[in-house]
């Protein structure tokens, strides 16, 4: 879906856990997430701590969208 949306010319950042799959399939901007069942959360932490994690991921996602790239790039947030 990432590539299909990006084919219209708007940047898409993929926030996902299995970075290798995203890379093989061909997403261009990738932000590695926490885990499959909770990519932008962590149920072992408090709600406040989770918000901190989520903010970091979203910030990195926004940063990735503003970064010029020429090839697939992973933007680690955590």
């Amino acid at each position, binding site marked *: 879906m990432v590539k299909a949306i990006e084919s219209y010319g708007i940047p898409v950042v*993929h926030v996902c856990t299995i970075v290798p799959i995203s890379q093989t399939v061909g997403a261009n901007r990738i932000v590695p997430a926490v885990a499959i069942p909770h990519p932008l*959360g962590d149920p072992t932490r408090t709600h406040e701590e989770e918000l901190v994690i989520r903010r970091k991921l979203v910030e990195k996602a926004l940063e990735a969208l503003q970064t010029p790239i020429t090839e697939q790039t992973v933007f680690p947030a955590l």
Partner: protein
Amino acid sequence: MTYRIVHYINQFFAGIGGEEKADIAPEVRKAVVGPGMAFKAAFAGKAEIVGTVICGDTYFAEHIDDATDTIIKMISDLKPDAVVAGPAFNAGRYGTACGGVADAVSKRLGIPVVTGMYPENPGVDMYRKSIYIVPTADSARGIKDAVPAMAKLLLKMLEGGKLGSPAAEGYIPRGIRINTFYEEPGADRAVKMLVKKLKGEQFVTEYPMPSFDRVAPAAPVKDMKNATIAVVTSGGICPKGNPDHIEASSASKFGTYCIKDVQTADSEHYQTAHGGYDPTYANDDPNRVLPLDVLREKEKAGEFKKLYDYFSTTVGNGTSIANAKKFGLAIGKKLVDDGVDAVILTST
């Protein structure tokens, strides 16, 4: 009964002219034209060509949608049982046209259709999955073999016979995976394959690995403070109750939901429909998959101008690549039409 066949050809094979006539619009003749004579012979009375539709290759390429509509109407008016297109050999525009016409006949008229092309004709890669293409030589000198092969396949399709493998029936492999049963269980096949590989002997893999196409990276957002950002997810987050019944696996659809005044994806109003991961954490706090709470925070703080009023969701569990692409194209079109500048797509 004699099957009624319509034949599609280009301006050159119709004897109208060469490149200088490639811009002619579609026309129909209630006659057998050009290579149609060879087909007539090959059909040996079981089928007859009741009409020939002709179109210039360049006209087709430059008016694909309209030309296809017109051609389909012309074909349909002749009330055929089946259609044969080409053969196009290695002519690229002609191959694309034959493929496009055959594809439209298959999808819109639902009748058997066969075309023929040289395997490297670009029309093959474009259409192999949806239609049957008989491999031919790279030039019209191969017509002696191409026509009987195409006629044979078409007659088989008309007679209702179930088509077998590409090798058996004489068509270019379509890249479609078909289940089959072997003599031995998979485990035995795997051990034997390893033994061969270890010995350096030849073996045949049952699944050749694909290579994936690429999309060029889109230009970055230059002015984030004035940008509209949309969020999309394959993690299956949807309104509580999954009102559109998005499937837990092999999703056949995506949903688009309004989040205009929604500040957070809370568990009271949202849930996940995805069956491929433990749903507990996503159901307890859907923001863990669809981060609305944090996105609203940043919208309020002015980091970007606006969070798009809708989010789209599907379930990325066993979703076929073709469907994922279809959903992505549909979602993307709406986003672009509505002036979205960039997208955050979350996956589980």
